[in-house]
Each structure stands twice: as C-alpha cells, then as structure tokens.
C-alpha cells in the first residue's frame, strides 16, 4: 500500500491545481503549495474519507494561532502524514 505521504499528496493533486510532482515531503501545504482555505477543507474531507478519521483542523489551527505549536508541525507534508498516521493509530488503538 502507498505511504500516507503519497496518498495525501495524491489527494492534494486531485483537489487542487498543484501538480503531483511539486508536492514534496518538505512542502508547506499553504506557504509552498498555495492551497487556500476552501481547497484545504476539500482536501481534509478527502483525507477523512480515505483514512477513516476526523482530522482535527480546528484544534490544530487554534494551537498554532495561540503560539502553542509551530505551523510546520501540522502543515508541512511529511509532518501532516505523521499526524494522519497518529490519528489512524489512535483510532485503531
């Protein structure tokens, strides 16, 4: 099975105008890929469905806005894939 990174990158390419080959592990979803908030919610919807989870975007955003976590923790591709893996593991747990 493809890695979470690859699956998420495929989802982003399908739900935005970003070419698949531009989506790299170190890409920041917003700053580097230029995903706007509406496309991002479409992407989250697709991730939720694909992985059977509920990505807690609101909690992540609040954490970042409050200065309690760097945006990179959630919005750089390789980290996003890790967070998704954690959510999948927690659900299976």
């Amino acid at each position, binding site marked *: 099975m493809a890695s979470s990174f690859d699956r998420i990158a495929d989802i982003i390419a399908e739900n935005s105008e970003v070419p698949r080959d531009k989506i790299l592990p170190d890409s920041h979803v917003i700053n580097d890929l230029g995903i706007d908030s509406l496309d991002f919610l479409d992407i989250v919807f697709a991730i939720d469905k694909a992985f059977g989870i*509920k990505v807690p*975007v*609101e909690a992540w955003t609040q954490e970042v806005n409050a200065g309690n976590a760097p945006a990179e923790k959630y919005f750089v591709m390789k980290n996003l894939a890790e967070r998704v893996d954690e959510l999948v593991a927690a659900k299976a747990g």
Partner: protein
Amino acid sequence: MRLEYFQMIDRVAAREGDAIIVESRIPDASPVFEGHFPGHPLMPGVLLVETMAQASGWLLLDLMGFARMPFLMAVKEAKFRSFIGPGTAVRVHAKRLHDGSGFAVTEARIEADGKRITDAELTFRIMDYPAPELADAMRGRGRELGLL
C-alpha cells in the same frame, strides 16, 4: 417561502438521525418573477440552491444543538432537472454526509409531485456565531420550525 427575505423553508416534515425533510411552497407572486422571466415566471436556480442550503443548514443547526452557525462555502454537482414556477409545493431532503472539524458536507434534493427537480452536494463552514443577533434569530426561527 418568502423569497424577498430569503426565508425558503415553511415547515419541517421529518427529522431523524442525520437527515431532514422540509416542505415549502413557492409563492404565487414575487418581484423575483418579474425579472425571472418576464411573461414566463420560473424559480431561479440560485434560489433552489439556497433552499437546499437552508434545509441542510437547519439540519446542521439541529445536529449541533444550535451552538454554532453553518455558512455555505461550496456547491458541487448541482443539477437542475426540471423547471418549477409560482405556486409549486416542494419537499426538500437533506442528509449529512460528513461531520468534519469545522466543516460539514451534505447532500440535498428538491422534489415536486414526487419528481426530482434539483440536487447537489453542499459544503458548510461551521463557525461561532459572529453576532448575538444572528444566534437569537436562528434559535427563534428554530423554535418556530419545531426544532427547539
């Protein structure tokens, strides 16, 4: 319906689980029909979308206990299959497809005389009420509709 006030829903016919059915009647007369279209009044497609959005909105409000407000942010796969005009009674079915973090997705359709008129998938951003007056208005109308 009171088109000029964007009040598209007359009553809730059924509410169960993740779904709602609402009923409404397109008014016999409205300034909207003077422009859409002269001599051939038709319910505008954008107002059919609004009707599906409001049915979905009441569903989502009820599912959230009226704690937060859904705002329409995307309409996908909207299809307008038949024309309907003044005086038509409609039933609107809406179902929540996904309960996301800060957003929700519904599918909705409008039927008249048992025939499908329009359908779409709708995405809503779920936000805190931006004004207390809006929260009061939603809860007030929710009470009128029997949801509260």
